[in-house]
């Protein structure tokens, strides 16, 4: 009798975990192993005739020539380093802009949304679910300068008293601003959402306590609201920083100028464009992953800690 009961208990213990097996296998074969493939190609060699990559699946056969050359190219001044530094600048400026533009919005909806809250939230989330490419296309349309038509934004600017000639958004130093505008426009919904969630969670009684104890509204914001929303700011910043570092389509769509390319463009070009550049592209992907890996792990650790607290 005891064995039968033990059997049922055993079945109970393993039945549900077994449901995860197909999904886990899928992720192993199509998420984890492909990561290894990047390393195998980056540390592999190339066919001398067709320049096709020969991946080194065995770690003992790894050769670090291509990887070393690529890393050296990043450290020496030149095209690749310029692309990397440009990426860094774009990301920092774009994240800072998202914070300045987005914080008041998230704060207003969380604190003063009132009856409009659902409408405001819906409008705030809507871009989240519009295709990124569609939203970039919208700006390409608005900024396009044609011989017979300076574009809608230029026409708006020319209607103001202090406008000069129509601006060509895709060249010169303005093009940097155009790409940053694209990045901010594209990623800001992803920044605002976690920030809103953090601000919305703040207990009002804490703000009231601060006011009761004599703090001014500004001091209350500085000493209570801002520290309590720090996690939200960090989560939002990390969640948009990660895809921005791998972005290649925003500069290509907004300006298509070689002066605005990011590190993602170098990877895209090496893997999809140039013949025989696969090992270099793989090496760059590895270097990029290492660079942003710390950010990823930081984010995941803080998310799973928050999830554990929520479970309690």
């Amino acid at each position, binding site marked *: 009798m005891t064995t039968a009961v033990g059997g049922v208990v055993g079945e109970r213990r393993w039945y549900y975990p077994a449901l995860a097996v197909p999904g886990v296998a899928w992720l192993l074969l199509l998420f984890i192993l492909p990561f290894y493939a*990047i390393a195998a190609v980056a540390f592999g060699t190339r066919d001398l005739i067709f320049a096709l990559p020969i991946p080194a699946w065995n770690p003992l056969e790894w050769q670090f020539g291509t990887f070393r050359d690529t890393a050296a190219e990043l450290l020496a001044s030149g095209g690749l380093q310029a692309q990397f530094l440009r990426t860094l600048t774009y990301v920092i400026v774009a994240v800072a802009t998202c914070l300045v533009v987005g914080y008041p919005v998230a704060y207003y909806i969380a604190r003063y949304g009132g009856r409009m809250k659902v409408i405001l939230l819906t409008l705030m989330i809507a871009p989240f679910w519009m295709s990124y490419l*569609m939203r970039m296309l919208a700006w390409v349309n608005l900024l*396009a300068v044609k011989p017979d038509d300076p574009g809608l934004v230029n026409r708006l600017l020319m209607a103001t008293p202090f406008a000069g000639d129509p601006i060509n958004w895709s060249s010169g130093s303005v093009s940097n601003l155009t790409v940053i505008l694209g990045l901010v426009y594209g990623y800001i919904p992803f920044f605002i959402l976690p920030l809103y969630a953090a601000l919305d969670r703040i207990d009002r009684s804490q703000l009231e306590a601060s006011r009761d104890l004599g703090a001014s509204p500004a001091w209350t914001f500085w000493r209570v609201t801002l520290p309590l929303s720090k996690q939200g700011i960090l989560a939002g910043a*990390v969640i948009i920083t990660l895809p921005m570092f791998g972005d290649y389509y925003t500069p290509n769509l907004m300006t298509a100028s070689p002066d605005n390319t990011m590190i993602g463009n170098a990877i895209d070009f090496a893997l999809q464009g140039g013949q025989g550049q696969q090992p270099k592209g793989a090496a760059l992907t590895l270097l990029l992953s290492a660079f942003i890996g710390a950010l990823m792990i930081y984010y995941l650790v803080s*998310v799973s800690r928050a999830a554990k607290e929520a479970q309690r």
Partner: protein
Amino acid sequence: VTTAEVALERERAIPRLGRLRSFFSNPWGKPRFLSVWTWLYIIWTIAPVVLAVQFSFNDGRSRSTFQGFSTQWYQAIWDEASLNFDDTLLPALTQSLKLALLTMPIATTLGVGLAIGLARWRGRGSGAANFLMLFPLVTPEIVMGASMFLIFSNLYHLRLGTTAQLLGHVTFSLSYVVIVTRGRLFAIGRDYEEAAMDLGASPAGALRRVLLPLLAPAILSSFFIVFAISIDDFVISQFLCAQDCTTIPIKIYSAARNAGNPSLNAIATIMMMLSLLSITVAVLILRWFNRRQSTGRSAVEDFARFEI
């Protein structure tokens, strides 16, 4: 009469014009400035897209000057007799739909299984598995695209195309299904299925007759969320495409700056409507369910709290 009531009376007494004047005399007063800022922000995020939709109905070729209403650019997608017929648009729409519709059932089935398995597995390694599960959400798409591109062409010897794209789409949508389902699983708890099993149900019976019906809203809304993220995807689709697998985002990417005419806006509008529609359905399912559960919060608020 308390001071608050007095203040309220005074507020009511200010005529509308006076209130407008006080608004302008003190635009930095806290909520006012914030409210203007928020509405400007919302206009800034929505207006370009609304304009893009408007130009898809333009009578002329321009994408920045409106010359009258017409649906000719929609006809250019499927009507071969149309003057501006572009034979690459309909295949792109079909490819996008095909991928999204195939991804939906596969990703949802695998993801729900994964969520149940991970939530009910308390043994060694479950923490690591739950942690790893989140990685696809934070991995930049270019890294995921590059890794699958490299393994498909160098180890699996899978020709880039629809199959490769489908495998890619399922991989990145899996985690979303797990997140949505897991949230619901925690809310349900383990009591119901254990009660069912104590009353003599087999684990399979408890799953089929207790757990799955309770999970139905999460499963259904994952279904529509997967549709929306699959149809919007660009990077993975592009990395895993060689020939005859152009999706709408790939088409937009290649044509936006050069060969674009309003038919590109038309097809982008169709895609956007499809994904917004499926997200609305997902939210409505959750709301319908929440009303029965009466959590007191709206589904949109729940959705906004849904992080990552």
